[in-house]
C-alpha cells in the first residue's frame, strides 16, 4: 500500500532524506520513529503529494506520488504536525465541511460526522466553538475528520504530541479502529511506546536515513541482551554499552551480577526487560535535537 524506493529530498545543500526505502501492505499501521530532524515530516509531505522528492520513487495506494498525485489525493487523508481545526467552527461543522470537500453528499457527510464524533468521544462538545476546547480535544477533532473520510491510507504526523494520557489513548483507539477497517495508517512519532503499542511495522530513522525497519518485536530482539540495566553514577571499572550524561546503560542477559556490582559501587540502578525504546537507544543513541 505504501512503497518507498531510494527516496531523497534535498533543501539547498542539505539532504533531509537520503535513500529511504521501505514498503508495507494494506491494513497495517506503520510507525516512522526517530528524533527531531530525522526526516519524518519531510517523508510524510512527499507521500501526501505536497512535496516533490529530489530523487527516488514512492507509491501510495498503488500510485506514483509524482505522476499520479490526483489519484492519490482521492485515497488518502492526513493530520498535519501541529495542525489544528478552524477555531471559530464547531467540531460538527469542521468534520462536516471536511467531508463535503472530500465529495460526500450532505446526507452522507452528516451521518459520517455523527459517527466519527461519537467514536472520538466528541459528541458532548459537538456544538461548541473549537477555540474553547483543549489541545487534546482539538486534535481529536482532526482525527474525527480523517476517520470519517473512510480512505485507504491515513497519514498522522505526530498526532499525540502534547496530549494527556487519556487523549493519547483515545487517539490510539481511533488508529486501531482504522486498522480494523482495513485502512493503512502511517504514523510519525517521538513516542517509542506508542510505536510499539500500535504498529505492525516500524521504520526507525535518523538524520534523514532509515536506520532499521521491521515489526516491533523483531527490532526488540536485536537488543543485545534480554534485560536493560540503567545506572546513575557509573563506576570507572564498569564501562556501559552506552552513556547519556551520567547515566549508563547495560544490555545483559543476566542483570543480577552487574546490578549488584553497581549498587556496591554506589550507583542507583534500575532493571527492566528490553523494549523498543532500548533498541532505539541502541541504534540511534539518545533521542535528542540534532
Amino acid at each position, binding site marked *: 500500500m505504501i512503497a518507498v524506493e531510494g527516496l531523497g529530498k534535498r533543501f539547498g545543500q542539505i539532504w533531509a532524506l537520503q535513500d529511504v526505502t521501505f514498503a508495507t501492505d494494506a491494513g497495517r499501521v506503520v510507525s516512522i520513529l526517530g528524533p527531531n530532524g530525522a526526516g519524518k515530516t519531510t517523508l510524510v509531505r512527499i507521500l501526501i503529494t505536497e512535496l*516533490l522528492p529530489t530523487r527516488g520513487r514512492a507509491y501510495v495506494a498503488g500510485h506514483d506520488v509524482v505522476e499520479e498525485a490526483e489519484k492519490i*489525493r482521492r485515497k488518502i*487523508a492526513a493530520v*498535519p504536525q501541529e495542525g489544528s481545526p*478552524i477555531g471559530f*467552527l464547531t467540531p460538527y461543522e469542521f468534520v462536516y465541511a471536511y467531508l463535503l470537500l472530500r*465529495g460526500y453528499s450532505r446526507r452522507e457527510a452528516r451521518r459520517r460526522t455523527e459517527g466519527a464524533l461519537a467514536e472520538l468521544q466528541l459528541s458532548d462538545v459537538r456544538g461548541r466553538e473549537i477555540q474553547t476546547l483543549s489541545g487534546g480535544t482539538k486534535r481529536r477533532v482532526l482525527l474525527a475528520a480523517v476517520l470519517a*473520510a473512510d480512505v485507504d491510507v491515513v497519514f498522522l504526523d505526530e498526532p499525540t504530541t502534547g496530549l494527556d494520557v487519556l487523549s493519547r489513548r483515545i487517539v490510539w483507539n481511533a488508529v486501531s479502529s482504522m486498522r480494523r477497517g482495513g485502512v493503512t495508517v502511517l504514523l510519525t512519532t517521538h513516542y517509542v511506546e506508542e510505536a510499539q503499542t500500535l504498529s505492525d511495522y516500524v521504520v526507525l530513522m535518523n538524520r534523514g536515513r532509515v536506520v532499521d525497519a521491521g515489526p516491533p518485536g523483531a527490532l526488540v530482539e536485536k537488543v543485545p541482551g534480554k534485560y536493560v540495566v540503567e545506572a546513575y553514577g557509573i563506576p570507572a571499572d564498569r564501562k556501559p554499552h552506552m552513556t547519556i550524561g551520567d547515566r549508563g546503560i547495560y544490555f545483559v542477559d543476566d542483570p543480577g551480577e552487574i546490578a549488584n556490582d553497581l549498587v556496591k559501587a554506589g550507583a542507583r540502578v534500575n532493571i527492566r526487560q528490553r523494549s523498543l525504546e532500548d533498541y532505539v537507544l541502541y541504534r540511534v543513541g539518545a533521542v535528542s535535537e540534532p
Partner: protein
Amino acid sequence: MKKLLRDMLVIGWLNGWVPLVRSWIWLVANSVTPLSFLIVLAVYAGEAGLRWGLLGGLIWTVASNGISLIGDATFYRLEIKFQQMLVAAPVSPIAYALGLALSSFIFAAPAVAFYVGYLAALGAFTATGAVLLGISMVLLWISTAGLGFAISTAISQMRYAWAVPGILAAILSAMAPVYWPATVLPDELLGALLPTGAAGVIGQAALGLVHYGVHVVTASWISLSAYAAISLILLAKVARWRQV
C-alpha cells in the same frame, strides 16, 4: 466543474458565512475606518460629502476584504495547517483559492449592502450607473482577492500576514482616487494606475460625482479588467499544492 463550484461554496461558507454570523465584531472592526471617513465627510460636506464617503467606503470595504485573504490563507497554511489537510484530499487548489476569495466577499456583504442601500436611498443611482458600479466592484473584488492570495503564498511568517493587509488596504484606498477625484492629479489617467483608483473613477463617473473624459473612464475599465485578469492568472499560477 460541479465539484469546483461546490468546494468554493463550502470554503466560502466555512470561512465567510460562519465567522460573519459568529464573530460579528470583526465585521464592525473592518467597517470602522470607512465609517469614520463617512461621518467626517458628511459633517464637513453635507450630502455631497456623504456620497463621496459612501462610494469610498464601498470601494474600501471590497478592496480591504479582498486583501485580507493574505491573513486567512497564510493562517491556514502556516498556523493551523488546514491547507495541508486539503492537499491530502480531492480538493483543487483553484477551488480553495476561489473559495477563500468568495468568503471575503461574503464577509464584506453586509457592509456593501449598507453602502449600496444608503446610496440608493439618496437617489444616487441611475440603472446604468448601478450596473456599471456593480461590475466594477466585482472586478475590484477579483483583483484584490487574487492579489491577496498570491501575496499570501510568499509569506513565511505569520506576523507579516496580519501587518501587510492593513498597509496595502490603506495604500490602495488613500493613494488612489477613492475618496478624492482624479482631477487633482497632474493627469487624470494616473487615477487608473491602481485597481481601487480605476474603480473609484468608474464609480465617481457612474454616480455623477465627477465628469471625466471618455478616455479616462475607458482607461479605468481597461486597467481594472486587466488587474482582474492578471490576478486570476496569478492565482491560477500560485495556487499549487505541490512544493518543489
